[in-house]
């Protein structure tokens, strides 16, 4: 062939292709410089000598389906050209990333299996942007996540930092909601807001109404004290949250216990307009508000509380939350059954009964 012919033919011959096979069996050829932009393919070609012909096509990882492959190759085709400015690349990326979230996830997965880090970073950032600032319901809807946590688990005491009076109130409501749940499931568990005043007289009254015998009345006075203390203990044990931590801090002698209580006192009275807020954020976890109420208990109880708290905290650190729940439930079984009544302001109140069931 003459030189001229060679010059004409040469560019065509120079362009080499890499053969790729996806999991569904389809094989395609891709320009070499585009395909080699992916480290996975590069490795296969250089280290194993694959991809040079149809019969030696490179088998791509399972997570790369043909649709994703074509997207990845589009990305590679653009970015492998060296002459592009940063601005061009950025603008391409922004347009490229516009796709529905399902495809975005699949693309992330595909890019990761092909070890194409720049694309993984790009898609990860896009996914983070989608998640940021949304409520859990919205996120679940976008990503089709199963809502498979129990109410208990959702109301775990991981407090949101937006903490204004309305939200504190909402937390109280959630605490009550949880109480009701427990009550429904296991009647023997005791967790209630404690009425500091007039407990005894009401107890007496109700036990009378409920038909308790004369003996129980006599026993009641001493038992009430024990109950109160045990109630506190149980409430303490059930707490994963502020009380635990403040107590822990206190046992280190660093943080005054009263601090919590002062703040809670400020917000105690607000109880109106609660129903409107029930549609509010699901993601605010109840900080076990009733324990905040307990916090401003009488001082003698404090010391004992701290001691128990330190023990419990150590135990808790070693246990997983579901196990803790179990522990809670089983602890409750030792207690006596209690009847509940509703107070004038809508809070639950425990009416003690001496009856053993």
């Amino acid at each position, binding site marked *: 062939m003459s030189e001229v012919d060679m010059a004409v033919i040469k560019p065509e011959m120079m362009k080499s292709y890499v053969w790729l096979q996806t999991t569904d069996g389809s094989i395609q050829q891709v320009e070499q410089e585009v395909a080699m932009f992916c480290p996975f393919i590069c490795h296969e070609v250089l280290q194993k000598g694959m991809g040079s012909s149809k019969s030696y096509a490179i088998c791509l990882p399972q997570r790369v389906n043909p649709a994703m492959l074509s997207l990845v190759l589009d990305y590679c085709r653009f970015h492998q050209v060296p002459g592009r400015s940063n601005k061009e690349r950025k603008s391409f990326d922004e347009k490229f990333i516009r796709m529905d979230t399902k495809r975005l996830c699949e693309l992330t*997965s595909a890019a990761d299996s092909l070890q194409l880090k720049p694309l993984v970073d790009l898609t990860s950032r896009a996914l*983070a942007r989608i998640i940021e600032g949304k409520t859990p319901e919205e996120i679940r809807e976008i990503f089709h*996540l199963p809502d*498979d946590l129990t109410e208990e688990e*959702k109301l775990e005491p991981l407090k949101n930092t937006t903490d204004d009076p309305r939200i504190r109130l909402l937390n109280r409501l959630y605490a009550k909601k949880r109480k009701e749940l427990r009550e429904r499931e296991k009647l023997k568990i005791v967790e209630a807001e404690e009425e500091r005043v007039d407990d005894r007289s009401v107890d007496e009254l109700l036990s009378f109404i409920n038909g308790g015998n004369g003996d129980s009345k006599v026993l009641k006075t001493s038992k009430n004290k024990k109950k109160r203390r045990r109630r506190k203990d149980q409430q303490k044990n059930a707490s994963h949250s502020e009380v635990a931590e403040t107590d822990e801090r206190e046992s280190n002698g660093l*943080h005054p216990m009263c601090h919590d209580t002062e703040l809670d006192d400020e917000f105690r009275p607000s109880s109106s307009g609660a129903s409107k807020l029930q549609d509010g954020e699901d993601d605010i976890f109840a900080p076990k508000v009733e324990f905040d109420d307990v916090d401003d208990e009488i001082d003698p109880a404090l010391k004992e509380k701290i001691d128990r708290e330190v023990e419990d905290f150590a135990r808790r650190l070693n246990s997983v939350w579901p196990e803790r729940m179990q522990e809670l439930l089983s602890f409750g079984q030792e207690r006596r059954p209690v009847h509940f009544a509703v107070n004038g302001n809508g809070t639950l109140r425990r009416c003690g009964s001496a009856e053993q069931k």
Partner: protein
Amino acid sequence: MEDLKAGDCISDLPESIIETILTLLPIRDAVRTCILSSKWRYRWTTLPDLVFDDRCLSMYNDGKLEQHSFIKFVTRVLLLHQGPINKFQLATSFWQCYPDIDQWVLFLSRGDIKELILELGEGKWYKVPARLFNCNKLTQLELIRCELDPPPAFKGFSWLKGLSLHQVSIAPEAIESLISSCPLLERLLLSYFDSLSLNVRAANLKFLYLEGEFRDICLEHTPLLVTVSVAMYMTDDNTEYFEQSSSCSFIKFLGGVPHLERLTGQIDFTKYLSIGDYQGIRPITFSYLKVIELYEVSFEDTKEMLVVLRLITNSPHLKEIQISGSSNAAAITEAPNLDFWATIFPKDCTFRHLKVVKMTDMSGVPHEMEFIKFLLASSPVLEMMSIALSLYVRDRRLSMLIELLQFRRASAQAAIFFMQD
């Protein structure tokens, strides 16, 4: 099966990607993912980097309550966290409750924290607890508005690569020994110091940023230094001190940095460098110096000009110069000693690699014009020169332009941009 396929695809992404995504989220959002579904319950707990900044705060500006809930949030996150914590950053603009930070530092010091950034608010400065010095795996330490008091027995952070102290109250000897006791230190930033006499001994230091009223800076042992940026204020006290000293600051500062690639000097830096007696000292060559940026250079001050000339003529590979002037427009009226001025410019100097020159805050003073003339005539590969006038001398624009046109250009490609404001 179809439903499953159309369903959740994000939860099954590899752990490393989930971690990346969670790290990109503000920590509040990341922690909230624990109630999304059972797979997401504990994912946030292994995040290695925890950043608590103003994004964690609510929109309701209720000072005390907000702070209280913030403290609780941070404490809770720390308690519920599992696995190693590599980075802990606290950046809030308000702070009054210091005992909590003490606890957090205590907690972190028990682990292997690598990066610690504490940026605290105005008001009484926080005294960093001594536990900090037990964090011997630290690679980055950044403190803003704190009080630091290293214990006398402190041997240094053996892995520390980056140290940044901004508005930190620390004894001068403590700083010097802190710097020299960190063998791997590569980046050092000291900002907002008053009247500090600094002696830097750091064998691996590559990047140095200094800002403040330094009395004296001596780079005693910094052989690997690549980038230096100094914003130095000289008060009247300092000036007196300098007048009494005879040592040459130029040598003290630039005598031991053979690998320097980038030098930035602001405010009174050139003035500082001009102090002392340079005569009879063997010239130093900055073989790697590529970019020189000097701001607020007083062109009428012969000594400062000598410093500038010394720098640029001893940098054979210089590519870019950026100079801003601070000449007093009133000085123009004085009859300059131009004959003497012309002599200080070396006659046969060539800047073989100089491509970009940016002059800003020019006043059109004869000294400045002579300098520009010198550069134009000595730069055969110059591509761009931009000149921006200071705001106060607009009326001199035309005469400056006329003068500029007369200057010979050694480079055929040189384009001069006269900036209009």
